[in-house]
């Protein structure tokens, strides 16, 4: 697997490097971003800026994110940190007019984590009926599909979308998607069967039910722990004047309930429901995007309530452009102010021993100011104030501090 990945990366870099070394730059054609305003979150993978090499059917692009931060927790700081958060490389190819290949490879934390986030072949039978197969991004919520750093005014990804829902959760799988639009309305759907979660979601060092733990299982692209596929489905409805509403579900058996044909446990399900919404208010152009999710996990009664069977959480981002003009020679540069509110309850329920509420929750407010010299590049400054309570609801620990970062497509 690692060899294949290395080979793939080497070829990618070779192509990319040669674009500059041997090809007349005038042959590199920047593929304009889809200017159609009426796109859905599910279109995000198609709506990325990229470079075309002459008349080849291959497009290449990517984005990079890096930042500085200084945070304290209960007044104690680890000092100044510079972080190479991630480098993502996209490569896509139009194999024929109605058969396309899209991929994204991500290097996180300076290469500590390398993952093929997305690598699928899309075959169009009809706009309302497309087949997608390969490594797919499970479309739960909106962030998982639409997570590119330069699109956001915040250096950190939402807590609920990264630590409650697993962000960039991808699996080997296949399914159908399609969309239809008429005047102001647009409807889209996605339905996939894919690789699934495993026991690590309730057996992990986070000491709580933690769906992203499943991402650490390198076997998930080859083997489903339970032997039963995960279903992910999403319906999205957009009205150009109102906004886009998404309803999604992801669920399946997560545990290894049998081995060698011998039953070793009962089948245990994980089910996730998510609602997402985004809109741009007319006239003042305030952009609002939000996502909220509920998670249900069948945790054995005789295990520990440390690992909860219910979680809920979400975020809302409000972004207000306050100035759009030529700044330092950048035409249509924009300054935005923004704010993110976040909340996650990792363990919804009551203690069997006392009947008291189980804590283990977090909320955060993150005001921000961002400067976009172009629509594809953002320089952002955030302040975070985060309160987190342990399982007993003891006095919150407070994390606060500043982040400053840059993210850009290339």
């Amino acid at each position, binding site marked *: 697997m690692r060899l294949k990945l290395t080979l793939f990366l080497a070829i990618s870099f070779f192509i990319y490097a040669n674009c500059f070394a041997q090809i007349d730059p005038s042959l590199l054609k920047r593929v304009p971003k889809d200017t159609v305003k009426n796109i859905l979150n599910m279109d995000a993978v198609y709506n990325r800026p990229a470079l075309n090499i002459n008349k080849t059917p291959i497009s290449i692009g990517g984005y990079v994110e890096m930042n500085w931060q200084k945070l304290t927790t*209960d007044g104690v*700081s680890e000092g100044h940190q510079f972080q190479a958060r991630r480098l993502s490389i996209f490569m896509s190819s139009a194999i024929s007019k109605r058969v396309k290949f899209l991929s994204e490879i991500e290097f996180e934390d300076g290469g500590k984590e390398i993952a093929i986030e997305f690598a699928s072949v899309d075959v169009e039978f009809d706009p309302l009926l497309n087949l997608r197969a390969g490594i797919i991004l499970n479309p739960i919520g909106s962030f998982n599909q639409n997570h590119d750093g330069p699109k956001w005014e915040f250096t950190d990804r939402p807590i609920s979308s990264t630590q409650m829902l697993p962000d960039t959760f991808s699996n080997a799988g296949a399914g159908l998607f399609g969309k239809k639009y008429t005047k102001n309305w647009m409807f889209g759907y996605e339905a996939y069967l894919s690789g699934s979660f495993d*026991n690590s979601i309730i057996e992990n060092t986070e*000491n709580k039910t933690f769906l992203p733990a499943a991402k650490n299982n390198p076997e998930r692209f080859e083997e489903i722990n339970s032997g039963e596929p995960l279903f992910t489905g999403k319906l999205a409805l957009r009205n150009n004047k109102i906004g886009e509403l998404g309803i999604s579900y992801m669920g399946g058996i997560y545990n290894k309930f049998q081995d060698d044909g011998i039953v070793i*446990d009962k089948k245990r399900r994980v089910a996730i429901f998510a609602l997402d919404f985004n809109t741009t208010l007319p006239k003042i152009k305030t952009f609002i995007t939000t996502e909220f999710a509920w998670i249900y996990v069948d945790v054995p009664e005789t295990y520990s309530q440390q690992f909860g069977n219910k979680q809920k959480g979400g975020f809302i981002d409000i972004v207000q452009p306050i100035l759009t003009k030529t700044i330092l020679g950048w035409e249509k540069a924009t300054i935005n102010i923004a704010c993110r509110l976040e909340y996650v309850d990792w363990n919804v329920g009551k203690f069997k*021993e006392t009947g008291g509420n189980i804590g283990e929750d977090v909320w955060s407010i993150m005001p921000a100011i961002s400067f976009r010299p172009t629509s594809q590049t953002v320089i952002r400054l955030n302040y975070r104030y985060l309160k987190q309570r342990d399982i*007993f609801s003891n006095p919150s620990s407070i994390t606060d501090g*500043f982040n400053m970062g840059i993210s850009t497509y290339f």
Partner: protein
Amino acid sequence: MYCINIFSTKPFLLLIFCFTLLSCDASYVEVPADDELLDGPVDGLSNSESAQFLRGDAAVNEVFTRETGLGPTFVGTSCINCHAGDGKGHLFTTLTRFGQIDETVNQFLNQGSPQLQNRALPGYLPEQIPAGATFSKFTPPAFTGLGFLQYVSDADLIKMTDPDDSNGDGISGSVNWITIPGYSIPASNAITQNSKYIGRYGKKASAFDLLHQTVNAYNQDMGITSVFNPIDHYSNLEIDPEISTAKVNDVIFYLSTLKAPIQRNQNDAGVIRGKNIFTQINCVACHKSELKTSYSPINALSYKTFAPYTDLLLHDMGSALDDGYTEGSAKTYEWRTPPLWGIGLSENSQGGNLFLMHDGRAQTIEQAITLHGGEAEQSRNAFEKLSTQDKEALLKFIKSL
């Protein structure tokens, strides 16, 4: 608009200004006062000792999983699971011991005794208390100040005992003579009786030292074997150590060097009055306000005077607190005097509640006092006769600890 104009014309100056502002510590949340927290090291550690303290802190926070040896049956998944913020534990992590009814051997050792592992990894079943076994529930104690208690000399403890109540104050106090594990190395000034040593940790004072206590906790609470106790409690078989000796040593160093809780509002008139009442009604006979350490290999703990409000001795606490279970040479109705230091901060680790006495049955300090019986009966009666103002002063003093 003023800001915007600056930004649009002098962006780099603003950037430098922002960076300077953000780098300034004054713009961040302040560190809580030392007397509001139970964690933190004792004063006087060397740099290398401080580094070991931090390693121990990290180890105490380590969460075990199936892969790293958890269980398969267990009570908690990490040390900090039961001792949040190094403070007293919650009923959620209260453990159950069962089987022993007198100083002779525990009859249920071959049935999982002494400790119940009431939780199990998926695919396993937790332990059950065998029919006929008596049991007692123990809420996890605070970690703080344990190093000071370690180095009170045996001679000082013996000096405080009065097993026959020769002074006639109704309070006896005795030590728990226990058989110590082979890996514990007694201090040169340790006192023995019939090859048994004095226990000083645990509700029944049945653990000899922090190594004994820690190794047992890893093994019985989490199912983690070590070179000191390599027997897996589930299979009763010897298995490879699941935690390194270095890590166990770091944890012990951390527990030894956690600071003693700092009393708050010491000069408050009500607190001073409460302290006097505490002495007058003779709570101080068991909850000693002053102990001294002897020599310690950790310089910061050597020859220190401290105020734990315990005598580390066993006392008859009356029939209401007699669960019919015991450890070592203690009687079922005898309990080691718990240190009162840090009690005022217990709510911060018990989820805003109080779970006092050995099993957390008391939810207020007043309730805990009224549950005292046996040797503490006179003090309890005296407390009940106090005026409302005097009771309030006494409670204020206890909450200041």
